[in-house]
């Protein structure tokens, strides 16, 4: 009834009988009350973006909430008093804010509503909403205020609205929709000072589009090879927050993932050590990347880090040392402030300023400031203040824009359930987004590769592979985690034991008390608390030459030991104590039922405990973005009939409601193979030992035992790994690279058999295994339009 009343009111207001305001509904979660570990969670509002009034006296903060519990307010803050003035109700999932140059009209993009809200800043009231597509994310006005350019995540486009203002109203008189196509999942947007160029960052695709405002055409698309986060113009330059191009492969072996025509990803580090925090500087006029800056800790913290002086390990392929200036983890937002930019680091609770040379775009790093709350995201600036939104902390930090000094912290979200984190699932959420404290070099977070819970448009090499640094595994979103237990393509792990992923953040080889070669008869008692002298005097035997060569502070490129802790569990519990003031779980979701005392006890937040906390966070909500596609469209209905039919048999392996099963099955598409036929999907033997649920052929299963005894790898071209069934829920929002190896580009390539008429020029049909078609469902008999119907249905799931 409430929705109906709202719909009637809005119809009258807007005067358009065909339009009624609607909100998308969150997905149901199979994980709920009654499941082990489930616990009620406090209300949160997850503040995201901020904008300041023209006179700098007030600010507004969008309260986005989450996909499962969307926020629907904007907080207004009096910057003079440092107090929350009011919360203004807007649409569902309030995300981006765009203040009209006149200063009176604040447009709020509600990602789960089919309208944008307009706030009259003089009264704090909303005026007539603007009908819009779902998933408007961010927007910028042209300097003259005549146009509003809006990124749309659903349409993968930028929409242009011509606007007029009259009193409290802001009207759209003309629209360019569905808009100018850009990369997958556009989010951040900025406009040059002269109003000639709009820049759009595609979060999932990892590209930046430069759009010509006059012609409304894409002028250039710059491929970053990594998520494109926030961006800002400074003169002739565009500064973009991103991460490294690397794919964790070997530098010069395996697939050519950097597109330079030779194997490998072109970076000497592998696995998670290849993951860096970067700022790209784009030459706006030329439409090309002019410079790239990387982590200040790219070397030499982890025992595997490649040293720039180590030619044998390709140290000369590291970026020049003068570019090692990015001081925090996961550059999230970039804000122009005169001839400098501020950068928020959501993964390490920091902000940093960089000076931008107007002549050549060179960046010069300034001090890194610790944020006053968890996971800083949105930034805004006035004449003398810098505003930093703490997304998980539920607060707004007010700092001096000249010194960075903290002046005030304003509660803008919801702390009624206690400071964040207040539950064990929230501890997991904190770790997911602010992981860097728990990494040896402070560089990585879970969120680097699972941006906003989604995935990236690239496949990585993963440490579970038998073919180290040359295999491929497509990044997975972590949405719908309860749909697909056990997890990952190999379906071998669950929420309590996905340790090989966690392990990459802080390998035990970095920690002295774990050093089997140093203490062959056992480390001394109390080693962790009181490390013996060997822990600083002896070299780390697990490190090859040039990489963290000793544990001594004085070694070149190793100004600090990996951590001040001698054991990983000691490191983790101490870091959590520092971050949240506790070193054990709350016990609401994570506990241990002692078999002797029958007591239910909190668990330590060590490596095991934090792994389980993260697992709980992944299950607690679906994290699935509500689906904007209409399942009642005729094409979707036709596709559904095909999906559920016996001919395609799609539903046999992807049954509703989760569109997944827990079953393992042989590969349904051709494995990713080396040129010699070796199956590069194969799992490391040690992985199979640690995870007996994983299933892979043994050599003896497919070859002569004597031959296997002579050479265990003799039949690696014939072995296969069993795979789990990936859920299809939320597939509409995923990157365009699909299947376990990420080589299928788009749903058509996934569904089509080789040579299928639905394929366009250059497209490949991946529905085959070793030349046999229809191994991933029967589709060869479908027409091109039927295949599109099937894809249309999939997008509605």
């Amino acid at each position, binding site marked *: 009834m409430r929705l109906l009343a709202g719909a009637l009111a809005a119809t009258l207001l807007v005067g358009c009988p065909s339009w009624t305001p609607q909100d998308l509904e969150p997905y149901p979660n199979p994980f709920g*009350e009654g499941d082990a570990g489930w616990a*009620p*969670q*406090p*209300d949160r509002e997850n503040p995201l973006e901020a904008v300041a009034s023209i006179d700098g006296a007030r600010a507004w903060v969008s309260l986005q909430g989450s996909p499962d*519990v969307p926020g629907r307010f904007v907080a207004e803050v009096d910057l003079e008093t440092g107090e929350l003035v009011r919360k203004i109700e807007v649409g569902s999932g309030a995300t981006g804010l765009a203040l009209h140059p006149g200063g009176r009209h604040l447009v709020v993009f509600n990602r789960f509503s089919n309208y944008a809200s307009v706030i009259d800043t003089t009264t704090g009231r909303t005026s007539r909403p603007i009908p819009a597509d779902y998933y408007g994310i961010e927007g910028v006005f042209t300097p003259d205020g005549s146009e509003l350019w809006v990124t749309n995540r659903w349409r993968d486009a930028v929409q242009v609205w011509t606007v007029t203002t009259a009193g409290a109203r802001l009207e759209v008189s003309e629209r360019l929709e569905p808009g100018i196509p850009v990369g997958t999942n556009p989010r951040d947007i900025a406009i040059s000072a002269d109003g000639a160029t709009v820049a759009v960052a595609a979060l999932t695709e990892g590209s930046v589009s430069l759009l010509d405002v006059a012609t409304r055409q894409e002028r250039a698309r710059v491929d970053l090879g990594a998520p494109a986060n926030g961006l800002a113009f400074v003169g002739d330059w565009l500064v973009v927050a991103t991460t490294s191009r690397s794919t964790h492969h070997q530098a010069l072996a395996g697939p050519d993932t950097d597109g330079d025509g030779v194997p490998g990803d072109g970076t000497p580090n592998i*696995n998670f050590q290849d993951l860096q925090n970067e700022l790209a500087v784009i030459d706006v006029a030329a439409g090309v990347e002019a410079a790239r800056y990387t982590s200040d800790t790219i070397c030499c913290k982890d025992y595997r880090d490649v040293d720039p002086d180590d030619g044998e390990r390709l140290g000369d392929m590291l970026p020049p040392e003068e570019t090692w200036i990015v001081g925090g983890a996961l550059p999230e937002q970039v804000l122009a402030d005169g001839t400098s930019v501020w950068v928020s680091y959501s993964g390490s609770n920091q902000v940093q300023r960089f000076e931008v040379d107007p002549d050549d775009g060179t960046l010069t790093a300034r001090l890194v400031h610790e944020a006053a709350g968890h996971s800083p995201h949105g930034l805004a600036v006035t004449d003398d203040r810098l505003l930093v939104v703490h997304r998980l902390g539920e607060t707004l930090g007010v700092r001096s824009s000249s010194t960075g000094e903290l002046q005030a912290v304003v509660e803008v979200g919801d702390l009624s359930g206690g400071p964040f984190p207040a539950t064990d699932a929230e501890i997991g959420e904190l770790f997911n987004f602010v992981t860097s404290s728990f990494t040896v070099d402070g560089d990585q977070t879970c969120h680097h590769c699972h941006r906003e819970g989604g995935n990236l448009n690239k496949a990585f090499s993963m*440490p579970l592979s038998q073919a*180290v640094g040359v295999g491929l595994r497509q990044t997975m979103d972590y949405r719908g985690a309860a749909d697909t237990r056990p997890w990952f393509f190999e379906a071998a792990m*669950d929420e*309590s*034991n996905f*340790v*090989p992923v966690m*392990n990459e953040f802080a*390998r*035990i*080889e970095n*920690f002295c*008390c*774990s*050093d*089997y*070669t140093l*203490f*062959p*008869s*056992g*480390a001394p*008692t109390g*080693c*962790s608390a009181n490390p013996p002298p060997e822990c600083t005097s002896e070299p780390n*035997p*697990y490190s*090859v030459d040039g990489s963290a060569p000793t544990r001594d502070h004085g070694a070149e490129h190793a100004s600090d030991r990996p951590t001040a802790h001698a*054991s*990983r*569990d*000691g490191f*983790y519990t101490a870091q959590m104590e520092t971050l949240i003031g506790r070193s054990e779980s709350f016990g609401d979701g994570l506990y*241990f*039922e*002692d*078999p*002797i005392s029958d007591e239910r*006890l909190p*668990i330590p937040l*060590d*490596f*095991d405990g934090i792994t389980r906390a993260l697992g709980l966070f992944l299950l607690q909500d679906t994290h699935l973005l509500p689906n904007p596609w209409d399942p009642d469209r005729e094409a979707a209905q036709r596709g559904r009939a095909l999906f559920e039919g016996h001919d395609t048999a799609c539903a046999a392996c992807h049954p509703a409601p989760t569109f997944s099963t827990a079953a393992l099955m042989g590969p349904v598409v051709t494995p990713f193979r080396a040129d010699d036929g070796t199956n590069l999907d194969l799992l*490391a033997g*040690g*992985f199979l*030992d*640690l995870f*007996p649920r994983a299933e892979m052929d043994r050599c003896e299963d497919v070859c002569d035992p004597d031959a296997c005894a002579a050479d265990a790898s003799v039949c690696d071209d014939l072995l296969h790994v069993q795979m789990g069934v990936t859920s299809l829920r939320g597939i509409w929002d995923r990157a365009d690279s699909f299947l376990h190896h990420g080589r299928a580009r788009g749903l058509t390539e996934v569904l089509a058999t080789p040579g299928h008429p639905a394929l366009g020029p250059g497209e490949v049909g991946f529905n085959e295994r070793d030349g046999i078609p229809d191994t991933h469902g029967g589709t060869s008999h479908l027409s091109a339009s039927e295949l599109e119907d099937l894809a249309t249905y999939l997008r509605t799931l």
Partner: protein
Amino acid sequence: MPRSSLLALVPVVLLCTASDCPGPNPPVTPFECELGLVLEDSDFSPIAADGTTSAEMIFGFQGFLWVDVAIRGDEDSPSVADVAARIDIDGFEPLGRSIPAIVFDEAGDGTLSETVQVRLDNSEGPALYIGRPATFTLKVTGEFKETTCAATVLLVDDDPCIYTDDEPICGDDDDSAEQ
């Protein structure tokens, strides 16, 4: 809708009519069990009561450390059970582990569990624990059956290598060491 509002709906949803309400759970019944090791030449080797049985720690993939044990129950064993394990290693704080969905031998007489992987540690490696006595206490719960069994072993490690992504890295006394 805030979470608190959603939670308010839960009791309503949980209401059921007399005819479709599930009946009360049956009482939990005990069953007997003993702990053993899984050795290469034997399916199940019971752990001696005097604490002299050596249990080899497996220092495996990426340095994770665990001990494989097995549970032999009586004829009343459940087919699937969850295990809550407490490990008391001499000189260390007790460790707690949860191991879900352990299957008792479907092909045999239904009394022997599959291998139960008890992760000791994710941090220190075996060095700290070599030669120390450790008591494993496992509470096994499933299908309204429950038991607790305990045994003490001596932790040993005969494998001087750490298993990284590449070749094993072994101690200085091993000529094959990759440094």
